[in-house]
């Protein structure tokens, strides 16, 4: 079986990396791209060596599955559209910008009998997989505290538009670490406190954040989602986690497998990864899910629970007190 895949919007740059992954794999085929922005869609189609579709219904009639890389607030309409056409969905994170939309997406896919997977590719980073194995084998005993960061440069574009993105740094960078922790420990977040502000970039959207949280088993967690890496930073950002257990500690720096290039011509220092491609892992897993007809590795519910934490952070910052999660 060759799984036929299409893109519903490539507004999110990750689309290009997913496209490369699809093109590099056997067992799947990139059918085409629909994008409401025709120019962007056609340009993307050219770069990925595929076709542009002006009508999403036409694309969906030729695909088994779609990847939704639209702006966050449009995930719902595209997911519902895909479900209506019986296509499985891989949706970029965060699942949506409201819990209502997230629930509607989960329901729509369930009703249509299609699978909904959320793109948390960090779960497929090799050192992250190692951490999962170590925790499962009890290598550091019972986990007591986790200190996480997902700091980055300011992504710009629609990411800084509250209507389209649903929020700034906190919306963009909270969900990865929250998802990893839920997956690592199988525990839910029960309280969220946050300081959130716009102090670093002239965008009017939050770029500084600090979250302090608790899991149902009393594990304490902090997470820094700030867009606090300057333009001169040698890489886009990081995902780090310090995990303190009763029997030891793990320091994870998920994207630290780099060499450094000092480039005089462009007056730029940059870190280049030599790690395995996490997006390849994500796409491979998505294809496998369809072929084997199994449950998604990362479900819509996972996406919803991560979004819940990000939204609670905004509420906490407004109320200046911790917010309890059901």
């Amino acid at each position: 079986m060759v799984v036929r895949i299409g893109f519903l919007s490539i507004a999110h740059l990750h689309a290009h990396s997913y496209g490369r992954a699809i093109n590099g794999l056997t067992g799947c085929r990139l059918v085409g791209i629909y994008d409401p922005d025709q120019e962007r869609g056609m340009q993307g189609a050219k770069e990925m060596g595929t076709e542009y579709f002006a009508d999403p219904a036409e694309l969906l009639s030729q695909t088994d599955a779609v990847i939704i890389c639209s702006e966050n607030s449009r995930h719902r309409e595209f997911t519902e559209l895909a479900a209506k056409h019986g296509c499985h969905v891989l949706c970029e994170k965060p699942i949506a910008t409201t819990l209502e939309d997230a629930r509607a997406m989960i329901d729509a896919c369930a009703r249509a009998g299609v699978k909904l997977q959320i793109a948390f590719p960090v779960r497929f980073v090799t050192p992250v997989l190692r951490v999962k194995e170590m925790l499962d084998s009890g290598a550091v005993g019972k986990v007591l505290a986790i200190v996480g960061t997902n700091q980055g440069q300011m992504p710009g574009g629609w990411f800084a538009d509250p209507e389209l993105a649903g929020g700034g740094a906190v919306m963009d960078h909270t969900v990865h670490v929250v998802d990893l922790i839920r997956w690592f420990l199988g525990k839910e977040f029960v309280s969220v406190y946050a300081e959130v502000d716009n102090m670093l970039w002239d965008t009017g959207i939050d770029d500084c954040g600090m979250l302090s949280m608790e899991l149902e088993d009393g594990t304490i967690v902090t997470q820094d989602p700030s867009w606090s890496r300057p333009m001169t930073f040698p890489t886009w950002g990081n995902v780090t986690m310090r995990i303190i257990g009763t029997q030891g500690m793990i320091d994870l720096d998920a994207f630290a497998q780099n060499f450094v290039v000092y480039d005089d011509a462009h007056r730029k220092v940059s870190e280049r990864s030599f790690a395995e491609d996490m997006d390849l892992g994500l796409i491979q897993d998505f294809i496998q899910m369809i072929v084997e007809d199994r449950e998604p590795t990362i479900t819509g519910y996972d996406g919803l629970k991560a979004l819940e934490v990000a939204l609670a952070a905004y509420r906490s910052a407004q109320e200046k007190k911790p917010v309890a999660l059901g």
Partner: protein
Amino acid sequence: MIRVGVVGYGTIGQVHCEALQEVPGCQLVAVADVDPEARARAQRDYGVVAAESMEAMLDAAEVDLIDICVPTHLHEAMMVQAMEADKHIFCEKPLARSLEEGRRLVELAKGYRKKIGIGHVVRFTPAYRGIRRSVEQGEVGRIGVVRTFRGGSQFPEGWQDWFANFNLSGGVILDLMIHDLDYCRWLFGDVERVYAKSTCGRTEVRLEHAMAVLRFKSGVIAHLEASWTNYPGQFYTAVEVAGKDGLITFDSRKSSPLAAMTVPGVSAQAGAVAANPYALELQDMVEAITEDRQPLVTVEDAFGALEIALAAVESARTGRVVEI
């Protein structure tokens, strides 16, 4: 010549005595410690008077400056006693164990004629001084988010295991995080509110890991992390300051100019070789006396840090936000 008497010849008392050897204009003349072994050590190391109490030390030697290096819960009583003896005082951080003790010291210090300095040594650490200069000069613009880390080494062993008794030490927040609390306050001013978490009370294991989120009146958001481990780890500190125009980062593990491996056996040494901050803080104290000025860290400064530390301790205990 300022004659110095060090009270408490434990971990930090020994560091002070050694540092004093580098400080011009002063001389170590006496040590006091309740522990006979510590007294014997002091005598052997420096050949000075080693008394069993501060009182006995003052009887046995002429002292101008009393350097208090006893466990935290004894700071207040010792400082009061030293003030009664009308001496210049240098006292290790934290200022005191409780807010009440701290307030009393602030009151007493107001009318006091001699100098009092508190050992917030991070303000004398070359790297941290340099970072402050960069921030003050506006090199990275208006500051938004700050992170600090301090710890990584094993839960400290002290006299009668006083560190493990929360009522005496105040745990990792009051003992260790307070360094960065003072430093951040020095750079970013007053704190508006604190929300903190700690493993204290959540495990029986001999470790403590704490994380505090601070909001400064200036708007700065800070995340401070301090840790005592239950495995033999390496002590390190890190700080990063993100501003509108850039980012400053420091990690003590990455700025060690020396490493040596020797045969036989395997031994490695690495670490910064910049000026000794303990000597610098004591030099500032000695100069404050001779120049008749305030030392860099006053009782009021130290009270400011104490207030935030105890607010963090309370927040961690109650789960609530504490306004300062």
